[in-house]
């Protein structure tokens, strides 16, 4: 090739892997993604939807039973006052973090591959936070008094204790939900306009039109829109790190051995991202296959996410080992006892070994390229991670409390059927919301995917040298200045 001869001074840059396979056109992308919403759903959708609705009903039943009978229908007894409910809360809120990581952090670091998965991941975030919020709300015991959490004047003239990590959590989680919803909605606006423009007049067009806000795709709008999107990404990035840090403060600021650790915030955040990515893949691998989105969610996307799971899983493994090391090295007998009970002599060591194998050993398979490219292996590892992350929270929360400072009050925690069915029910609720999302909203950000196609670069082929990226050679210096306008 003559290009290599001419480019002897400039180092050759390899072509990047395309983000959309088979040279798909703009209208192909529109048709394929809008088609999911516009056509009849495949039988599998109904096969999943009906049980999800039934499980949601089970969840509603369990909560109704809890309200009508009392919070004692859950298995919490002294000293284990926090058990499955708080475990489930931390589990679900953690799932959400991958969505924000994809939509915000990968946006700020200009990872263009995020465009194919960010919409579904953000939806997952919102639905997961909805599931998470249910548990602390019912955990307070009298759910109809839950408005006492809001900082509004009340007849008792007592304000919330703003110095308490539990109240920090109220603010962190509600802010997280609101900001994620705003971010998601803002991203949806141009795609809702696409759906609006394809609909025949009727109720659907009215509703899509209502939420598309009259979007016209003008560059004067895009310009502000992109600024807004970047600002939201920049706001969400510290937010997502803060949310799970604040969740970890619920434990770390206490003086319970096994909880009172400074490593908790980064350890929780890494764990949240780890578990969240596993859930993204759990949802997206079937979606990709069922709806024929293989050209948009390519092996490269799966590969990248598997690598993030490997990285964060290894960070989590480091945190586990560091906890053990500090328990030994701090020479604090209570801390050492807490970890001996967790891993060796306690009544719930099985949970500790589940946690360790699922979270630390299973993802190590992703060092091998073949494993990252085999969807079945990826799916199985993700299932292990999903389970492992639940066990992690169970180990931290319930098993630590089983052996409190006073041996006289030791008790092994046993979950009741209400605990189990409520948790199962939230999976149904989560799946139901996700399936409705697939049914009514574009699962992939249409506009954003179009923006990363090679033909979307206005300077494509300006430098026809193969192997060199256009953006590496782009120079806007002469175009920055608009010519003065004649008066």
């Amino acid at each position: 090739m003559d290009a290599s001869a001419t480019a002897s001074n400039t180092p050759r840059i390899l072509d990047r892997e395309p983000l959309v396979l088979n040279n798909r056109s703009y209208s192909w992308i529109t048709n394929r993604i809008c088609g999911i919403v516009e056509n009849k759903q495949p039988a599998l959708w109904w096969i999943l939807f009906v049980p999800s609705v039934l499980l949601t009903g089970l969840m509603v039943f369990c909560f109704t039973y809890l309200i009508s009978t009392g919070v004692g229908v859950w298995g919490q007894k002294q000293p284990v006052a926090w058990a499955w409910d708080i475990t489930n809360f931390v589990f679900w809120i953690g799932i959400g973090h991958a969505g924000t990581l994809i939509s915000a952090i990968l946006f700020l670091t200009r990872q263009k591959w995020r465009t194919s998965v960010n919409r579904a991941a953000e939806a997952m975030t919102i639905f997961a936070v909805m599931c998470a919020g249910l548990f602390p709300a019912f955990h307070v015991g009298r759910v109809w008094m839950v408005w006492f959490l809001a900082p509004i004047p009340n007849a008792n003239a007592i304000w919330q204790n703003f110095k308490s990590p539990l109240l920090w959590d109220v603010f962190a989680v509600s802010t997280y939900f609101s900001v994620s919803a705003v971010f998601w909605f803002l991203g949806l606006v141009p795609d809702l306009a696409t759906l609006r423009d394809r609909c025949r007049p009727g109720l659907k067009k009215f509703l899509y039109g209502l939420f598309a806000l009259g979007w016209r795709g003008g560059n004067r709008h895009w310009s502000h829109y992109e600024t807004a999107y970047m600002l939201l990404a920049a706001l969400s990035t510290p937010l997502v790190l803060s949310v799970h840090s604040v969740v970890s403060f619920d434990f770390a600021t206490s003086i319970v051995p096994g909880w009172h650790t400074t490593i908790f915030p980064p350890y929780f955040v890494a764990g949240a991202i780890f578990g969240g990515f596993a859930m993204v893949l759990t949802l997206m691998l079937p979606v990709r296959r069922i709806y024929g989105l293989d050209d948009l969610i390519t092996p490269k996307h799966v590969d990248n996410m598997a690598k993030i799971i490997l990285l964060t899983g290894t960070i989590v493994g480091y945190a586990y080992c560091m906890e053990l090391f500090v328990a030994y090295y701090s020479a604090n007998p209570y801390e050492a006892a807490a970890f001996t009970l967790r891993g060796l002599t306690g009544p719930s060591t099985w949970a500790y070994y589940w946690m360790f194998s699922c979270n630390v050993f299973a993802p190590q398979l992703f060092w091998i390229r073949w494993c990252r490219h085999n969807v079945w292996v990826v799916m199985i590892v993700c299932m292990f991670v999903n389970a492992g992350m639940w066990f992690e929270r169970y180990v931290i929360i319930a098993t630590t409390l089983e052996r409190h400072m006073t041996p006289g009050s030791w008790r092994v925690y046993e979950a009741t059927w209400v605990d189990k069915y409520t948790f199962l029910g939230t999976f149904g609720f989560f799946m139901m919301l996700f399936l409705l999302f697939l049914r009514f909203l574009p699962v992939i950000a249409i506009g954003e995917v179009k923006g990363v196609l090679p033909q979307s670069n206005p300077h494509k082929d300006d430098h026809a040298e193969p192997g060199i990226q256009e953006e590496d050679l782009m120079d806007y210096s002469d175009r920055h200045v608009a010519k003065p306008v004649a008066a």
Partner: protein
Amino acid sequence: MSTTLKRVHGYLAEFDSVKDLYHAAEHVRDAGYQRWDVHSPFPIHGMDEAMGNPSSKLPVFVFCGGITGTTIAFTLETITQTNFWSHIGLGFLQKIVETYPTVVQGKPTDIWTLPAFFPVMFELTILFSAFTTLFGLLALIGLPRWNHPLFVSKNFGKFSDDGFFVCIEARDPKFSQEGTKSLLEKAGGKNIELVEDEI
């Protein structure tokens, strides 16, 4: 027979590709037009420069929104939980909220308990900034808007799929039926259409 009055909104021209649209925008910019826009299914990198757009003022709004959030959180927390306001001679503020301070956890009730207030201050900063971003954006771009003359054009619906358009509005001082049309033709525009709005 219809007797509806029509008002000219402007000229709409279609372009084949991002590249053509980009160069057309440079043409229109250099011809000195002010009231015009390009419409595309996705934001085009570098188009602001090609159009000569100023950068968005949104960050200024968002900064103010964020500061408001921080201030509200600080005020709420210190008024209800500390004696800070009485110490600086503004005790009447604390009278307004009529409250018993929550003296728990062995934490001080003066301003030095501030670090415990940081998480809520941080979260409210983010919350207010995010909502300012959304509403500031909508204010800047003049949406939501139920209808727009451009939607009268049958062709324009393609903007959200694979159509690239330039629209020069009639209220631009340089707009003229012939001059504007020939400029768009010269720039390579296709399906040039005079968009009229019923009044």
